[in-house]
């Protein structure tokens, strides 16, 4: 669908059949995957300067090669770096992390073995490493009083991840600049 005023962001989330210990039958098309796809689209639509590319489409394909919890957060971080590598202007690097609340205690970056139906999980994505939430996804039951603590932990973790991504982008830029200077 062509938009006259801005570009359309199209995302696809899929998991390789070998990415989990119990081999998956379908890499994509399941309900959870479709939900992640829509969340990714909305998050990146808000971060990318979409008005710079009218009548265009940006496709972001995320394939999970090895799953160990925090798949959505990992996809957001990877997609962010890929967009920076492609030179697509954004409001800032989008970083994400998954936190969990275990008996009221907030824990950052749960692995797949720490996942369970009784542990509530919150994936938070922020822009530019600041307290600007552009995506939030909460699953499993949690009391509303535990949410602020979980969000605070996610923000602190996001700030750390942002600095990692930022330094990776700067190192890459310096290499490219050094290469172009030689040429």
């Amino acid at each position, binding site marked *: 669908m062509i938009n006259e005023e801005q570009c359309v962001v199209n995302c696809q989330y899929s998991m390789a059949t070998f990415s989990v210990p119990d081999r998956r039958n379908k890499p994509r098309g399941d*309900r*959870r995957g*479709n939900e992640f796809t*829509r969340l990714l689209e909305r998050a990146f639509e808000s971060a990318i300067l979409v008005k710079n590319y009218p009548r265009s489409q940006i496709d972001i394909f995320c394939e999970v090669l090895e799953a160990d919890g925090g798949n959505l957060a990992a996809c957001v971080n990877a997609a962010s770096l890929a967009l920076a590598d492609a030179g697509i202007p954004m409001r800032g690097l989008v970083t994400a992390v998954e936190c969990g609340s275990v008996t009221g205690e907030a824990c950052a970056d749960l692995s797949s073995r720490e996942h369970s139906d009784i542990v509530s999980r919150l994936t938070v994505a922020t822009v530019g490493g600041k*307290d600007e*939430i552009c995506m939030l996804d909460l699953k499993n*039951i*949690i*009391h509303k009083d535990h949410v602020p603590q979980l*969000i605070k932990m996610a923000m602190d973790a996001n700030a750390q991840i942002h600095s990692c991504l930022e330094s990776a982008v700067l190192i890459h830029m310096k290499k490219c600049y050094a290469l172009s200077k030689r040429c």
Partner: protein
Amino acid sequence: METTDSNLLSLASGELLKKFDPQKYFDQFLSEGVYPDGRPVSQFRESNVKTSVDRESDGSSYVQQGGACVSCTVNLSVAISSSEPGVLFTIESLGSVSEDLITDAQNFLDRLLSKNVFFDISQLDAGHNLRWTLHLKIMVLSSDGFIMDALLTAVNAAFMDTKFPSVFYPEITEEDATIDLSKVKINREKISRLTLKDTPVYSVYVLYNSWNAADVDECIVLCDPNKEICELTQNRCEIIIGKNDLIYEMSYAGKSALTETILSEIMICAKRRYGKISEGLNKIRAR
């Protein structure tokens, strides 16, 4: 005559502005804290819930909430106890409802049912190693924005309305004996109903940045937005809340930053909405 002409002119210019510059049209209302129809932005649209609308099913409901109309029918079947899901559902819609809304609704309902949020699954035990299965048929007749709020209310009301007949099996069964389903007798004169653990309520909020606001980052929280408002801004927060301030699910994606103040405002609105809907459903049940 002059007054009528000037009224018609202002109406026409309003409609023209809405057509050619919807952002400006809605901004003049939303910056004042009201929707174009006069409803305050913190108020939800009226809900209308009816139960037992389909006499041929074991439980049914019809909900009109905002611009969405949803009907839900429950049919029971009895089978040998197994680990299969006790509640199966299908969601159908008329052509005017977007496929994305239906898919989102399927995902939400699937997760809520898998966590046995509505009732304890042991209530489906019919005795004699038999178990009830609930077949939900949900039909979305119209939508204006979102459908999940009306859909969830319809499901809650249908569960409340469901009448379970008593089951009788003539022969005494051993634990590992084979059950012949053709011998199962259903007594519709002796009925029981489900005891619901909770009636989760879905509500959606849109964060809107007014052009007239002094602070560019200042957001107005719009409760229960209609389709036209949703097209203006993609900043949407969905929350499913239950009793005792339990949050079942929450999601947000958008350009506007979701701050702690906005989040607590949303949770207060959601809690108020939950109280109103569950009070209404309890009144229907009490009748």
